[in-house]
């Protein structure tokens, strides 16, 4: 039998090694590469820019360009507004659904839980196609029905499109977030509920004094991932774009970066925009965690 140290070394290389290699290649290097790109520019020699190209270091030029582009700054503001509207609705809905499922008697709970989780299996772009049909005048039964009541609904106008997109995202992910919270609810010690019953606590007290504090970590986790996901908005506006003139080519930061890269062939500016978005997502996630941490320790 080989020594423990040799065994450990072989095990680490064989079991952890492949993952780490993949992690470096598909995550660490791309991040480094994006950072490098964001600080450089491609210059072409020759009078018509058709000579050899070379990469030169340009400092923060790409960042300055991105942050002085009104369209990109507007797209940042748009996803932040989107997050402010959508994240609270999403988390409250997921939490309420989880608590209601927990409070309902056994019959039907499994059915409802599956139904709420179902949209998670529908790809984001397919969900956008689906809701896109439901937003389209002439196709949408919602618009037809509201018309018979004399209400003219416009889901695709510039005033409402952001909310229409928020609805798609909520429809898709509320059930997933609910499931994470349900998993946490299921793991609460039964003794706590018995003790509360003996003390004469009512359902509301059980929710506010026992359940909510104990599922708080799951709520924090889902909030952080919802914030990160929300700022990355891309597929939904892309799919709805042919339907709504309110969606421009730089409607969200990711759409803007995508178009900089593939329409304008400016990968360096695209990289700078991606980095700015990632930093903002990071700042919001950690800001939120700090806020929660402080409130809990005080």
């Amino acid at each position, binding site marked *: 039998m080989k020594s423990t140290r040799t065994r*450990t070394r072989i095990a680490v290389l064989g079991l*952890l090694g492949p993952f780490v290699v993949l992690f470096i290649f*598909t995550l660490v290097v791309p991040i480094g590469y994006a950072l490098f790109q964001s600080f450089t520019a491609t210059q072409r020699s020759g009078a018509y820019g058709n000579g050899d190209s070379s990469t030169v270091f340009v400092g923060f030029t790409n960042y300055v360009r991105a942050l002085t582009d009104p369209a990109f700054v507007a797209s940042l503001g748009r996803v932040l507004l989107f997050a402010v509207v959508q994240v609270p609705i999403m988390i409250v809905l997921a939490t309420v659904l989880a608590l209601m499922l927990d409070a*309902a008697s056994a019959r039907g709970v499994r059915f409802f839980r599956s*139904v709420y989780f179902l949209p998670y299996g529908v790809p984001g772009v397919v969900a956008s196609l689906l809701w896109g049909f439901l937003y389209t005048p002439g196709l949408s039964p919602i618009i037809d029905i509201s018309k018979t009541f004399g209400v003219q609904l416009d889901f695709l106008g510039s005033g409402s499109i952001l909310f229409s997109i928020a609805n798609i995202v909520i429809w898709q992910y509320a059930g997933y977030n609910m499931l994470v919270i349900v998993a946490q609810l299921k793991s609460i010690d039964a003794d706590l509920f018995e003790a509360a019953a003996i003390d004469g606590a009512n359902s509301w007290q059980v929710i506010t004094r026992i359940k909510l504090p104990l599922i708080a970590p799951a709520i924090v986790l889902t909030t952080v991932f919802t914030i990160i996901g929300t700022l990355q908005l891309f597929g939904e506006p892309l799919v709805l774009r042919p339907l709504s003139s309110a969606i421009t080519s730089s409607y969200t930061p990711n759409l803007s970066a995508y178009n900089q890269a593939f329409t304008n062939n400016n990968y360096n500016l695209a990289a700078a925009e991606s980095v700015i978005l990632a930093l903002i*997502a990071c700042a919001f996630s950690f800001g939120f*965690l700090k806020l929660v941490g402080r409130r809990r320790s005080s």
Partner: protein
Amino acid sequence: MTTTELPDVETVTGRTTRGTRVSRRRTTPGQIVLIAALAVAAIYFLFPVYWLAIAATKSSGSLFGSSGFLLDKPQLLSNIQNVFAYSGGIFVRWAGNSLLYSGVGALVATTLSISAGYCLAKFQFRGREFWFNVILAGVMIPGTALALPLFLMMSQLGLVNTYWAVLIPSLLSPFGVYLGRIYATAAVPDSLLEASRLDGAGEFRIFFGLVLRLMAPAAVTVFLFQFIGIWNNYFLPLVMLSDQSLYPITLGLVSWQSVSDRHPELFQLAIGGAFISVIPIMIAIISLQKFWRAGLTEGSVKG
């Protein structure tokens, strides 16, 4: 970036089960209100799918001419035939591609991340906490932020517009390592590992013969989430692929929808294709429903 502020999974998943909670409620007015509220929520989540199922049976004409909630001269079979027949059966190809990306990607990703999680849980070595924290930080990096630099790397390697360009980035699941480590700590007893080692088993035989079986619930959960994640992915294949025959379903359906203003017949095809692609996933979600939570809850139960 420090990760100590992240809530750890032990608290996220909890540590005890409430198992035999006495069921103590009868049908009270409160329960009726509760069920009604749950039913309203169910309608919200189901009605787009219902609309899709109805729309998939309609002809292009009655799609616009009749109520979206009611059947009108259903012709589901011929619609489905049209989806499969269009452009030399390209839809079947897309479905096969989606299965390949998701199936192979999720299988390899699960193996790699579960073994890494087990290694981080059960072996003492230098850099252990460092790697775990770095990987944990990776959970927070959204895939869309990586797609552009990955595209540039892949194009330098000459892999753009091949299966590899989508498959390789899909093999990564930092979440799987996170769950794998927590689960291994709780569900793989050290005494069992020691006994196998004394019997002369090598570390890889122990992992594939014994540990993987003990960690099966976590592995299934990781597989399912990774499968859905790849199946639903749009940005990565959009960036990487230009050849239609390599498209997954998501990319293919959007390509149909985006030209449907010029080719109205594609409108019905996009609806039919969406319907066909949603059905297997829905069946999988309902029939595998206990596995979705299995890794998340059971990992804690055993601790």
